[in-house]
């Protein structure tokens, strides 16, 4: 065990994966000698050589095209998109190619070994184009898996599991927490299985669910609520596609209330899917409407980013409103 931040945990996971399997390759814009603009790939080129950790030309569609080809050939590509905001030029390669590779070939060819890492989310004065949370787009795409870690320990275990997963995984890293989130991380190789939510705090009055950086918000809100005598169950979804309906449904059936928090805009955010699915299976248990506390339906702003982010105050207000319903 050693104390480290989320970025170091990502770096450690990549290091572990590269050491253990020589087919693992890390690449993307500036990830080579420089170690990436956030330094997630620091020292990997030094350790594993230029042909296993390298810079690509500045083309996201090319990076994903390259990654698809490498994966199909039998390598284990871990491609970095410098900011999740810049994943959109690669949308076609991801949605039409990566996601459908195995299906369309009748399982003759696949790119299941592919992992795409991308720092996402706001709160770092990034404005429209260094703040977006595009996870919901990919949850509408059968064939992909979508994972978001909340802290260093989770990041290492989930990233190792993602790299070894036989399906393509989009791994969104909460860049606001890259340095802000620290914790103990085991030195050894370990995996946290995909597809499983985690109950972080048990409670009886309302279920709060989020992922990534918003976990801190709902945890804080849960604490504030506790001071008012409200007992919140706090769940980290961790994998968004395919998500862990059983754990969530069990919790909602127990508490009778659900609050979903995400940074992305409300309309068609992943909260919509959670709400739609859970009202289906928990209908008779719900004592209030499922509530979504999310980013507004605007581009991500700069001067007013504070006003944009769905923080603990908004969350607590919504918890109270749900209990008062």
């Amino acid at each position, binding site marked *: 065990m050693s104390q480290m931040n989320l970025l170091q945990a990502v770096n450690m996971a990549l290091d572990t994966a590269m050491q253990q399997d020589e087919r693992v390759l890390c690449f993307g814009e500036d990830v080579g000698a420089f170690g990436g603009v956030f330094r997630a790939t620091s020292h990997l080129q030094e350790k594993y050589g230029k042909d296993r950790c390298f810079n690509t030309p500045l083309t996201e569609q090319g990076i994903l095209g390259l990654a698809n080809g490498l994966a*199909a*050939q039998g390598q284990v590509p871990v491609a970095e998109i410098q900011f999740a905001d810049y994943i959109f030029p690669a949308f076609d*390669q991801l949605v039409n190619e990566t996601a459908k590779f195995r*299906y369309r*070939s*009748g399982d003759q*060819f696949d790119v299941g070994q592919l992992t795409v890492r991308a720092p996402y989310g706001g709160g770092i004065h990034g404005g429209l184009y260094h703040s977006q949370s595009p996870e919901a787009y990919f949850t509408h795409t059968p064939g992909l898996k979508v994972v978001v870690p909340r802290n260093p320990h989770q990041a290492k275990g989930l990233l190792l599991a993602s790299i070894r997963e036989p*399906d393509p995984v989009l791994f969104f890293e909460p860049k606001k927490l890259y340095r802000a989130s620290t914790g103990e991380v085991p030195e050894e190789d370990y995996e946290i299985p995909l597809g499983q939510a985690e109950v972080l705090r048990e409670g009886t009055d309302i279920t709060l669910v989020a992922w990534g950086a918003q976990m801190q918000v709902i945890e804080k809100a849960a604490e504030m609520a506790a001071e008012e005598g409200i007992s919140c169950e706090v769940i980290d979804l961790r994998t968004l596609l395919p998500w862990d309906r059983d754990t969530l449904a069990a919790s909602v059936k127990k508490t009778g209330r659900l609050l979903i928090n995400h940074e992305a805009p409300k309309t068609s955010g992943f909260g919509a899917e959670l709400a739609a699915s859970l009202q289906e299976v928990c209908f008779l248990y719900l004592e209030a409407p499922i509530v979504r506390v999310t980013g507004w339906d605007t581009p991500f702003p700069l001067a007013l980013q504070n006003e944009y982010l769905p923080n603990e105050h908004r969350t607590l207000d919504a918890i109270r409103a749900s209990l008062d319903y």
Partner: protein
Amino acid sequence: MSDLRSFDVELIQHPEFVDPQTSVLPTFALLQQDGNLYPGAKAPDISRELALKIHDTFLFIRALDERLLASQRQGRVSFYMTETGEEAADICSTAALAADDLIMAQYREQGALAFRGFPLEQFMHQIFSNEKDLGKGRQMPIHYGSRDLHYMTISSPLGTQLPQATGYALGYKRSGQKNCVICYFGEGAASEGDFHAALNMAGVFRVPVIFFCRNNGYAISTPVHEQLAGDGVAGRGPGYGLKTLRVDGNDALAVYEATRLARKMAVEEHQPVLIEAMTYRLGAHSSSDDPSGYRSRKEEERWRQKDPVARFRQWLIHQGWWSEEEDETRREEHRQAVITAMKKAEKVPKPPLEELFTDVYKEMPWHLQEQLEEARDLVERHPEAYPATAGRKQA
């Protein structure tokens, strides 16, 4: 890292803008339409056996294309695309490769697959998307793929295979495998952003890939002069650091020789290569298209005079390796074989319901298992609405 740009460059004091009109790459050609070599041309070192195999593939593909297009007209097949007029391009380039080099095709390269030995039955299973189709009946006709024959399953979105080819070739390089990737695409697809990404990365990473452009004059109705303004697609190759050659795409020998040399550079020196084969799509774009809306019979006729299959046959006859009579017999054999195979494949049932849900992921996650159950119930409750799957025993 660090800026390796040279300071020692040629300086000029008059602003001479490079004029794109001035540089036109020549076309490599060996065989004239009458089956004789051009003066000064040297035929590649090609065995009788290989030459006859190429020609037989030509005849097979003509028979396949003719029959399937006719069947589409009769409503027996939902969709089809012929490669008539372009056979030399894909077949002779593939003939110059190792049998385990990877082929990434666009969709008009069934000839390459046939050359590799894809069984006629498999062509038919794919066309009829029945349960024996290697692709499990999921894609439209002509989206073939064969892991065994190193022929990547076709994907409809244009251009996407190009950067994948660069990646696949990089995988070869990394694993030290002495293979290359050949990546086929049309001059239309070359306008996609993926083309740029692919060729640029191939140049930077120096990978064993041959980008093989079939410039057949059209992208559906759009003629090449509305597609690009430079010197074709070949004109772009040097800008990416690729070795580049334009070749007469209707010249079986020139295509073979160009690809043979390209493969050598790709595999031995990791030098990526761009080949532009100048050819013409004699048929419609697809069975949904009618070219009379955008080009003249006269133009088609002019290109029909340059038929690659007839040209190569003349050469074979000059070589004393083949005769008109053998040709007629063999064409008829292929025709009959196709008809027989079609009849059989038509009767093979569609894939079972399960195959709608498998292969989305390696293992079926809970939500798809749930949906499969729902679908099973549905088919059971409404068998009349689901004739393809109702009443079939489950896997």
